[in-house]
Structure formats: C-alpha cells, structure tokens
C-alpha cells in the first residue's frame, strides 16, 4: 500500500520537475515547482516524518516560492518566452545528465531492495526526540548554521542599501 502511494507521489514529482524545466512560461514553471515540492512533502509523510513534511511546505512552498514568484512577475515575460531555452552551456548538461541517470539506476540495482519503508518504520517520529537531539548533541552545528543565516541576512540588507547615503 505504502509502496503504491510512494510510486504515485514520486511519479507526480518527476512529472512536475520535468514541467519546471520544459514549460516556457516562468510562472507555469514556478507552479510546477510548487507541485513538485508538495509531492516531496507527501513522501516525507510516508517516511514517518510529518515535521519535515510540514516544514518543507512552510519554508519552501509558503515562503521561498512566494519570493520566487515575486521576482518572476516583474520580469518581462514575452521576451523570456521568445528566447531559446538552450544556450552555450548546454554541452555540459548533455554530458552530465546521462552520468547522473546511470548513477541513480546503479544505486537502485546495487542496493538490496527497492523497498524504502523497511528501515523507516522503526525510527522515532516524536518531535520531542528531534528537538532534544538538535539542542543537545547537534547544538554546535545548529548554532553555526544560525550564525551563517544571520550573516547572510545582514549581507542581503547591506546589498540593498543605496550608495552615497549613510
């Protein structure tokens, strides 16, 4: 049953991801990216991590994509749609993409089973466990990441400051 749901969500996610790179209208592309992220959130639920799923929706779909759309909307769409989607860097993509695909299939075939849910069922699902680990064992990385984000935030503000004004 879970396998069935997983295949459904995964299939939708891949279809949406293809949509992101193939649709010519950037707003439609953004919509497919939203669909893709929601499917990934659903897969997180199947993997018994509702917290990750909800945070995925909260941060990526609720905040990051909104800012994405803000930026996309002020772009002149007609010019973007007429431009060729391929450019000089395409040659690297033609080399790297098959390698990545071969890699994925190799991992699938080498690994013992295709069943994603055998090990997951035993993991703890409580948020208390997650919080405890995050704030005791992994406190140092957590703080480092927080400081990094703060620095990035300050940088973003500094970059938007107008020159010549103090």
């Amino acid at each position, binding site marked *: 049953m879970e396998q069935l749901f997983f295949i459904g969500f995964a299939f939708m996610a891949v279809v949406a991801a293809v949509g992101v790179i193939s649709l010519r209208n950037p707003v439609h592309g953004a*919509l497919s990216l939203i669909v893709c992220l929601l499917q990934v959130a659903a897969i997180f639920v199947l993997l018994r991590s*509702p*917290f990750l799923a*909800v*945070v995925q*929706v909260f941060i990526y779909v*609720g905040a990051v994509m909104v800012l994405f*759309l*803000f930026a996309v*909307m002020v772009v002149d769409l007609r010019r973007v749609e007429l431009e060729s989607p391929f450019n000089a860097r395409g040659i690297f993509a033609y080399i790297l993409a098959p390698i990545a695909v071969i890699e994925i299939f190799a991992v699938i075939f080498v690994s013992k089973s295709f069943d994603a849910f055998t090990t997951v069922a035993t993991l703890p699902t409580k948020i208390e466990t997650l919080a405890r680990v995050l704030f005791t064992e992994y406190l140092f990385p957590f703080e480092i990441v927080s400081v990094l984000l703060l620095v990035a935030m300050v940088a973003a503000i500094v970059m938007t400051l107008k020159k010549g004004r103090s």
Partner: protein
Amino acid sequence: MPSIDTLIVVGVMLLKVLIIGGALFCAPLPLTWIERKLAGRIQQRLGPHRVGPFGLLQPLADMIKMFVKEDIVPAKADSFLFKLAPILAMAPIFAIFVVVPFGPDITIPFIDYKVSLYITDMNVGIIFVLAISGLAVYGLIFGGWASNSKYAMLGGMRSTAQMISYEVAMSFAAVGVVMMSGSLSLVDIVTSQSGGFLNWNILYLPVGPLWFVIFLIAGLAEMNRIPFDMPEDEGSLAAGYHVEYSAMRFAFLSLAEYVAMVSIAVLLVVFFLGGWDNPLGSLIPILDYVPPVFWFMGKVGAFIYFFMWLRFTIPRYRYDQLMTIGWKIMIPLSLANILATGMIKIYADYRITDVLEMVGLKLW
C-alpha cells in the same frame, strides 16, 4: 481487504470531513446576512429586508444572482491560472479545519462508539496550520497575475506583500502559544488550558495578553479585513487582485474570505480562549451539563461578531502605515515577547489559579 474496524474508522472520518466541509461551504450564507443586518444597525438603517422575513432569504437571492451571471475570462488572461486561482485561495483555508478540535471525545449512546470531534490530531498541528494557511497567498498571486491587468497585478502584489509580512508576526505568536502550552498538537493546547478562564493562555500573565493582541492583529491582516482590507481599497487602486473576476469565481473568492474569518476566529479560540473549555470551570455546577461544543461555538461566534463590528467602526490603514505596523512594531514586539515568555517559562511558570492556590484561595 482491510478489516471492518479500519473501514469504520475511515467511514467516520469521511463523514466528519463531509459535515465540516459542508458547514463551511454554507457558513457564508448566514454570515453575509448577519453582517449586512449588523451594518444596517450600526449605520442606523434597516439592512436587507425585502426578500423573505427580515430579509433572511437575501443571501439565497444573491447566490442565485451569482450563479446565473456571465462568467467572464479576460481575453488576454492566462485562462488556466485565472480559473485555478479561486480554488487555490479556497482549498488551504478549508484544510486548516483538518486539525481543529471542536470538542472532547463523545460517546454515541446505545452503540457505545467513541467519536472524537476533530478530523485528525497531528503532533505537528500548529505548524501544519501555519504552513497550510500560508498557501492561501497563491490565490492572490496567481489571481492578480493571470488577470493580465495592471490594477489586478498591483493589487495582487500589494496583498501578497501584506500577507507575507503579517505571516511572520503570526508565526511568532504561534511560537508563543507553543511555549505557553508546551505542545504542538491543537488538542493538547486546548487541554493544557482547561479548568476555567483563569487558566486560559490569554491570561497567562504577563505575556499572554500581548500574544493574543499580536495574533489578533496579524489575523485581521491575514484575512484581509478592516483595518487591513487592502484588496478592497478602491481609494488607491481599483479594488485588488479580484478586479477582473465575476460571477461564480468572484463568489468563490469572497467565500474564501468568509471561511478565512471563521478560521481565524477558531484559531484564536483554540490558542487563547481554551477551545471548548467552560469559562467558569465547575464554579457553577449546572454549567457542567452544557455540552463543550456549545462553549466552542459561542466563543467563535463572539469573535466573528467582533470582526464584523470592527468593520463598520474603524477606517482602513494606508498601505505604508500597514507595512510600518507589521515590520517595525509587530515583529520587534513579538521577538521581545518570545524572550520574555522563555524567561517566565523557566523561572515562574505559574498560571493565575496556581498563584491563588499558593495564597490559600481555591476557587474550584
């Protein structure tokens, strides 16, 4: 083949979804009537009084009008997104009610079957509410953009900026609630406040009232009602993101706004007013026989009345004032309040009843 018990559980859940969904779909009908009657009373006129007794059938007449009107899609609009936007505005707000607890578990007499008055109790309930309600903003973005009209586009941008600004303050207020109640599950948040109004989060002194005010103001902004109803601000822009919508699609957008009002009222009650908790505890024994759902509905109704009352009482803010309030007052205030709540939680985690008990006063 799943067992019969599983089927019963799924059946009961589907039934609950149908009842709640149906009730929410129908809620705007009485609510518009109440709102217009109230507007009439406040402005010293009659309000609707032609269709049916006391104008009670007015919403039905309006609905028929909305159904039979021509549904216009602008020629240069992105017709797929234009049609999708009202659904995107509506669906997330309905989804909030998946985790809302309306009352404690009840046992159906005769067959002795226990039914919980919520669809599901998620252990991440409060983050789910914030995440899902944040998705409603896509209705505004896509609606404004897909109309291919400058007014709708600017209106959509303006409303989006408003919603994401106040979402920050709202999330901080939710963090405050989690700190006061010590749980992310909405059912646990309600049970942590049980035992009379002195135990409610709004009276978790000294930080509770401030969280309540922050959540209330952010909620008003999130549901686009006065004093933050930018989409309807015809003084600076010709309406907002919905300027190109007509007939049923427009009706869906206003339905979404009404359900959003109900959802904010429900969240305020769950987070700060103890959900289904009896305000007087067992001080007056006879009140114990009142079903808890009644208290819940009563509190929600009071908030909805309050929102309507506000609408006809105070003017709307200018856009820059709205942004100043959001970023320069609400967010610093909530950051300071988080710090204060944390300190109180560590050093003096008392509710009023605890203090009263310490001085030897036991109310109930």
